[in-house]
C-alpha cells in the first residue's frame, strides 16, 4: 500500500559531477517497499515544475531510510540536487510492480546500465547470497563506487564502461554469454538498447528476463494513463501500474 510521507533528508551526496545519492527517513515507504518499485518526488515547493518525478528505490536502510540514486538531466533533478540534509522531501510511494523472484532457482543476474543500476542495489540487498551483477556506465567515476557496494552484498560483479576506464571496454550484453548458463533469472534496468540486447540473449538461452522501463509519468499511480508504452498486439501497458518491471515477453520488442 503506497503512502504519502514528508521525509527528512539525511544526506544528499554528490558521487560524480552529475550523480547524487539522496538518503531520506521514510519509514512507512521503506517498510512497504519491494525492489523495483519507485517513489514520486515533489522536486519544488512552487507550481513550476508542476509534476512529481519518479525515482527507483535504490536501497533500504535498517533505520527506516531509503536512498535514491539520481542523475541531473533537467530542471527537476537540478532542484533535487540542491536539497540539503535537514530539509524535508515530499514523497509518495512505493508504487508499481517490482521484480518477481518467486521462480528463481539458480542465481539471479542483475544487469544495470547508467542510472538503471539504481533499483538493482535494492534488489541485491533482498536476494539470497549467490548472484551476479553486470554493471555498466560511462566511466570509472560513475561506476566504481556502485560496483563496490554490489560486491559487498555478495554479488559476483563484472563491469563495463563506455570509455574503457574500468572493466570491459564496451557494452554489458557482451559479458552476458559467460554468465547465462549459471542463472535462472535476469533482471535488467538501463537504456533500451542495452535491455533489448539482454532480452535477446535471454530468449535465445531460454532464461527468463525482467526489464524495468522508464517513461514520462504524471501521477505514478494509474490515474492519468499518461505512462502508456506499447504492449503486445497493438495494446498499451502502463509503466506505473503494470510495471515498471515487465517480463520482456510482455513487450513488443523485436527480439
Amino acid at each position, binding site marked *: *500500500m*503506497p*503512502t*504519502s510521507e514528508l521525509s527528512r533528508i539525511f544526506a544528499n551526496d554528490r558521487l560524480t559531477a552529475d550523480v547524487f545519492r539522496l538518503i531520506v527517513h521514510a519509514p512507512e515507504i521503506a517498510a512497504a517497499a519491494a525492489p523495483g518499485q519507485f517513489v514520486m518526488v*515533489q522536486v519544488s515547493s512552487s*507550481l*513550476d*515544475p*508542476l*509534476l*512529481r518525478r519518479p525515482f527507483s528505490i535504490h536501497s533500504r536502510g535498517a533505520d527506516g531510510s531509503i536512498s535514491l540514486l539520481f542523475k541531473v538531466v533537467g530542471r527537476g533533478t537540478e532542484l533535487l540536487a540542491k536539497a540539503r540534509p535537514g530539509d524535508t522531501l515530499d514523497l*509518495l510511494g512505493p508504487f508499481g510492480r517490482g521484480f518477481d523472484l518467486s521462480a528463481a532457482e539458480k542465481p539471479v543476474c542483475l544487469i544495470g546500465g547508467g542510472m538503471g543500476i539504481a533499483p538493482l542495489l535494492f534488489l541485491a540487498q533482498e536476494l539470497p547470497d549467490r548472484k551476479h551483477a553486470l554493471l555498466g556506465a560511462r566511466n570509472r567515476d560513475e561506476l566504481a563506487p556502485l560496483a563496490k557496494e554490489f560486491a559487498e552484498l555478495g554479488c559476483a560483479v563484472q563491469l563495463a564502461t563506455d570509455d574503457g576506464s574500468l572493466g570491459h571496454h564496451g557494452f554489458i550484453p557482451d559479458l552476458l554469454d559467460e554468465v547465462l548458463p549459471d542463472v535462472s533469472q535476469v533482471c535488467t534496468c538501463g537504456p533500451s538498447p542495452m535491455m533489448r540486447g539482454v532480452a535477446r540473449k535471454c530468449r535465445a538461452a531460454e532464461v527468463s528476463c525482467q526489464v524495468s522501463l522508464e*517513461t*514520462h*509519468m*504524471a*501521477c505514478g*499511480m*494509474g*490515474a*492519468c*494513463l*499518461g*505512462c*502508456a*508504452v*506499447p504492449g503486445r498486439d*497493438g*495494446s*498499451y501497458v502502463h509503466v506505473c501500474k503494470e510495471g515498471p518491471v515487465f517480463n520482456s515477453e510482455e513487450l513488443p520488442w523485436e527480439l
Partner: protein
Amino acid sequence: METLDLRVRIGALELQNPVLTASGTFGYAQEFEPFLNLNRLGGIIVKGISLEPRAGNPPPRIVETACGMLNAIGLENVGVDRFISEKMPYLRTLTAPLIVNILGDSLDDYRELACRLDEVPGISGIEVNISCPNVKKGGVAFGSVPEMAAAVTAAVRGATKLPLIVKLSPNVTDITVMAKAVEAAGADAVSLINTLIGMAINAETRRPRLANIIGGLSGPAVKPIALRMVWQTARAVSIPVIGIGGIGTAEDAVEFLLAGATAVQVGTANFYDPSAAEKIVAGLKEYLQRHNEERISNLIGALDTGGK
C-alpha cells in the same frame, strides 16, 4: 463548529460539499484510496467511458508545461461493459455520489451510453464530454458548435432521468452561447472548462513532444481563463455551473464559488497532490469559519464587483 453547511445542489442531486474530482484525473477512484477518504468528497467523477473500450493514443501522451501539462491520452478507457462489471462493484461501496463521464463519436453513441448507465445502480449522475469529434460531421467537435452540443444534450436527456451535466470546451469564441444551448436542450448543469488545445515541441529533436502533436492543456496555468469563463457563464444561465481548471487549493475553490460556481472539480492537482480534494474540503470549512459564514452556498456568485 458543527453547524457549518457545505451542501450544494446540482439539479436533483444534493452534494455534501462542493468538491468533486475531475474526469480523467482520478482514475476509477480506487487508486486514491491510500491518499484520502473518498467518502469525504462531494462526489467522484470517473474517467470518461465510451461504448467500446479504447486503447488511446501512442506515447508520449503527456508533457509538462509552465505551471501546467498537456495530455493526449486519447480517451483510453475500458468501455462501458467492463466499467460496469469491473469498476462499479468497488465504486458502489462508496457513499460519495458517483458521476460517470461519457463520450462518443455520434449522437447514437451518447444515447446508448446514457441508456446503459441509466439502469446501473449506484450512479448519481452523468457528465457528458462534448469535446470529442463528431465522426459523422467530419470530426468537428460537438463542443464547438451550439447546435451539435444541444443535440447531444437532448439525446442524453431523452435516454436518462439521472442528473445531467454537460461539460463544455473552452476552445470557443463565446462559451456562454454553448452553455445557453445545452441549458435549453435539457442539461441540469454545465461544467467547465475542459482542456485548452495546446502543443509542445522539442527544439533539439524538432519533433512534437506528444505523439498526437496536439493535446489538452490543464493545471494552474489555465486557472485565470477558467475562472473568467465560469464567471461569464454563471451570469448567462440559470442552471448550476461547476467550475474546473487549475484548482489545487481551498483558496482556488473559493474563487470559483465567488465567480458563480455551485461546485468545483479538482483535476491535475490530483496528480501532484493526491489528497488535494480532501484538503480542499477541509480548507473550505476553515474558510467559512474564518469568515463567520455558516453556509457555503452564501459564497456562490458573491463576488463583489462594486456594481459592475
